[in-house]
């Protein structure tokens, strides 16, 4: 390495933040859903829909800010499908999540071809992209605000307490007069909004939408949530760690040293290790994955 160490460190730091933004959004989204007791494997699909709709609206309206709103709305809409299936119709949460992901892989390419006349990817013009605020896109600042907001909401407000109660012990929450289904529905929709925003970051960053461009980021976000012990700050830290691994991998590419695949595998391997309880057990919310059915009167 020829450049001074300080320059190298700064550029690595900046790259880490850039890589982490979508993960931070999506893992914060996952936090809402999972802490309310609904497993969200569909984060990946919600991100992909966010990436697609953010890019599409930006291109059609020539307005990236409208694109952001579009990504959030579509993310919320897809989350509604997941919520409707799992909460209202009591479908298995994992199966529904798998369906959401399939829907995203097929649906976004399908719609790209419909809107873009047979093309399987499309580019954003200069006017369709978000401006840079300093070294980062505006979303990079927003994601940290979202984490702070999620922390305050979940641990210092009454609705946040309700959210966690519903995920730990729905029956007790119900006895307290909390509408379990409604809280869960809202939480899942919130996770869709955040995952959508996280997905939208990708086309704004790269300048185009491409088939399956999330390529597993939603699952890495899920991994960050688990590795961060289902806490927004922990998930953020894990996202930054995973982002760092990715940035390091890119920076070191072509400079010898470890093969890039070692860094690529880090998030996944660490999550498996964390789940096995080797580095302090990561404990899921008690009611995660369980349907809640009110006892029928009489």
């Amino acid at each position: 390495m020829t450049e001074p160490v300080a320059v190298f460190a700064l550029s690595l730091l900046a790259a880490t933040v850039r890589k982490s933004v979508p993960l931070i959004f999506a893992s914060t989204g996952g936090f809402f859903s999972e802490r309310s007791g609904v497993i969200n494997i569909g984060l990946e699909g919600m991100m992909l829909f966010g990436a697609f709709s953010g890019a599409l609206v930006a291109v059609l309206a020539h307005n990236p800010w409208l694109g952001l709103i579009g990504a959030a709305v579509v993310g919320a809409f897809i989350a509604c499908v997941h919520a409707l299936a799992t909460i209202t119709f009591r479908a298995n949460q994992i199966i529904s999540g798998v369906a959401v992901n399939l829907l995203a892989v097929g649906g976004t390419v399908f719609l790209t071809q419909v809107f873009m006349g047979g093309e399987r990817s499309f580019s954003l013009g200069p006017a369709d992209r978000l401006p840079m605020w300093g070294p980062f896109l505006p979303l990079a600042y927003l994601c940290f605000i979202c984490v702070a907001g999620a922390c305050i909401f979940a641990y210092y407000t009454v609705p946040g307490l309700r959210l966690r109660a519903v995920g730990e012990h729905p029956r007790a929450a119900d006895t307290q007069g909390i509408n379990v289904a409604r809280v869960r529905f809202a939480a899942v929709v919130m996770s869709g909004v955040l995952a959508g925003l996280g997905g939208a970051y990708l086309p704004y960053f790269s300048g185009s939408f491409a088939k399956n461009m999330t390529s597993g980021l939603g699952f890495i976000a899920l991994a960050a949530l688990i590795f961060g012990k289902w806490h927004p700050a922990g998930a953020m830290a894990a996202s930054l760690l995973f982002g760092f691994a990715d940035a390091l991998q890119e920076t070191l590419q072509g400079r010898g040293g470890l093969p890039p695949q070692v860094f690529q595998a880090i998030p996944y391997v660490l999550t498996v290790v964390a789940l096995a309880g080797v580095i302090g057990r990561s404990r899921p919310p008690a009611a995660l994955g369980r349907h809640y059915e009110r006892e029928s009167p009489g």
Partner: protein
Amino acid sequence: MRGEVRTGLAGVIPPLVALALAGIVSSVIVLLLGESPLRIAEVMVTGSLGSLSSIANTLEEATPLIFTGLCVAIAMRSGLFNIGGEGQLVVGAFVAAWVGYRVGGLNPVMHITLCVALAGAAGALWALIPGILKARFGAHEVINTIMLNYVAFILANFLVGLPYFKKPGQIPQTEDVLSSALLPRMTFLYEYTRLNLGFVIAIACVLIIYILLEKTEVGFEIRSVGHNPLASRASGISVVRNTLIAMAISGFLAGMAGSERVLGVHRHFISPFPFGYGFAGIAVALLGRNRPMGVLVSAVFFGALASGGAQVDIETNVPRELVTVIQAIVIIFVACEYPIRKLVFPRRRTAT
């Protein structure tokens, strides 16, 4: 618990209703595109069943789905979600390609058997990782199988880039397997078909898994653990042992799917390896109600969708991704069988 003992009408009607609903939603999508659903359906049917060549295409598409559908189904019958079929398939495909080009001097029967068996074993080992973590630490197999999918892609990508495995050139792929390892294609049906002996092996697996699950003690124990682990443990059935057995068989089947793709279709391993059979297996198992015969039927159904969808892509301006969308819609509706069952059998008390 997990869709275990519903037989007869109560077992078949909810998936059929779900299929009908999925058909309606798909028709609406097609209408929105300004195409006629009837025409699309016609192209789909002729494209998947209309001629010998299209039937061969359908069965070719169905072959890996039979394996991955069985993979998901047997895990599910033991109470486990194996979402890792994708990764187990990739590991199996890599091993099949390696053994296929590296080991020479065998006759075809020996060579193919060796490749398929080692591919299956690799898939089984890959599936045993989450199996052991589940049995030993109670770590959730869903997350672990998903994570190991990506580890498998990355590992295979790494290995195929090594000089030892990589065919000289720009593309990260192995040498083609030797002709003694190729699964013979059924060219008597249609000259250019990629349908191969793997289909027959898949059918044999359906029968074997059926017999294993329904007629043997091992199968009984697996189903028992899936149905009620606590009661099984109380009656002396080892939950740990059966978890591991089910995951190993499940991974073995996914590994075999990988070997079929390599030895019968692609002839080498390439990174990234064609993606999606593992996840589609979840749809197949779900629609087939986790029964071997059901898996066979629904794999052929999804195979027909795929080959019909390819024809739709060529003949109309509806993109082939419609098929993936339909798959997703089918999964959602089949998963929402609770309200459907309520609708069809309003008076029957149903447990979930």
